[in-house]
């Protein structure tokens, strides 16, 4: 019998990560759009926002576009989205 060690971060992550509360209703809700910095991300998200308005009657739409796809969203933008939005959608659109 031999023991092999786990090369992944599976156990480290399972103890720290948790999901944000889910939005229960979309009607009238403020929705955040976070484009990751690729050239078509904003276009893709705008189409999704159109569909959400038509089908679910979402309210205000808040847009954030990262300037660099390789770095995280700024703390300032993340906090703003968390405060203002019931849900945030992110997209690559490459």
């Amino acid at each position, binding site marked *: *019998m*031999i*023991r*092999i*060690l*786990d*090369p*992944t*971060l599976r*156990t*480290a*992550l399972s103890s720290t990560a948790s999901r944000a509360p889910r939005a229960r209703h979309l009607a009238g809700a403020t929705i955040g759009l976070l484009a990751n910095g690729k*050239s078509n991300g904003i276009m893709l998200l705008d189409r999704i926002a159109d569909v959400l308005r038509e089908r679910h009657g979402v309210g205000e739409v808040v847009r954030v576009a990262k300037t*660099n*796809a*390789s*770095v*995280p969203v700024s703390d300032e933008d993340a906090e703003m989205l968390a405060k203002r939005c019931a849900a945030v959608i992110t997209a690559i659109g*490459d």
Partner: protein
Amino acid sequence: MRTERDGIDVDDPWEAIEVCYERGWTDGLPVVPPTEALVEHTLAAGPWTPDHVLLFEPVRSRAVTAEKAAINAVMAGCRPEYFPVVGAALTALGDPAFELHGPATSTGGAALMVIVNGPARLHLGVNGTANLFGPGFRANATIGRALRLVLLNCLDCRPGVLDKSTQGWPGKYSLCFAENEEASPWEPLSVARGFRADQSTVTVYAAESGHNVLSHGTRSPERLLALFADAMAGLGSLSPGRSVIVVAPEHAKHLRHAGWDRARTQAWLYEHAWRSLADLKRAGKVEPAFFTNPKLLEWIYRDADGGTPSGPLDPDLAERVTAADEVVRVHRGLGPEDILLCVGGGEAGGHSAFFPSWSRGRSVPFVTREVPS
């Protein structure tokens, strides 16, 4: 088979190898089973405590500890004494300026190039001579592989999932080699990058696949370097990004005899690796988005009179070729410092290599770190 939090118990090494496949822990090749004893030996060969974070990837908030790095290094086939090189390379990849998330996940399919300098090359047997990019050398094959396994297993860069490489290339298995300092006409790459010759270093780079630069017919530096510049100016990979040139010893000898130093060679290559803006437009290499991106606009027009387009910024400008575009030179990179020169390969043969950087933008910088002794 019994599973616990920190590992899996198996009956024998063959089962261990198959379990690693079943769990998705390999790059497609069999791995060395990472037993506790092997991981302990590997950790003991480096200066880091098991919980020391060697690499933090901020986009997905992943911290790679020395212990996880050691497990992956064992799986890659590293001898314990390679671990300081693996750890130094992970530290370099974790430099915030390297922005690892991009080259690790992009459709561009970059390999993580590791160039080793200094005494570690010799005592670890990192090959910088004949067939330095090819098979046959444990350090070359396994140090780069350890980095790839860390990306797969710790950063979840799985093909088609988070690693969205359109094609990738074989350098993604491992791309680690030494500089052939003994055949270089210049100071070692590490010294050019601010270290002492008696320090061992790793320099990392996000590399697209290499291009052979073949010349047996000239000793003239200008004629020889014109071939490099031509490869660098190929429209397929032309970008404002970086270049790595690995000069073969035979080519390096011609530069040595002619007295060309590193700075002069870099400057000459930058000056001659260009295409006209008209060529770029005819090839569809200019995208409409370039005209709203100050960095890309600067790249395209930096050699133009006034540094801006001669006509109005209309939506067709990306494709419309003007007379002025025929004389606007668009260079590879933004300056000579974007060209990294090192020497590598066997004594015989006129085969050098050019590696373009990942990305159609600036890519990420070269990062050099000392290997702890």
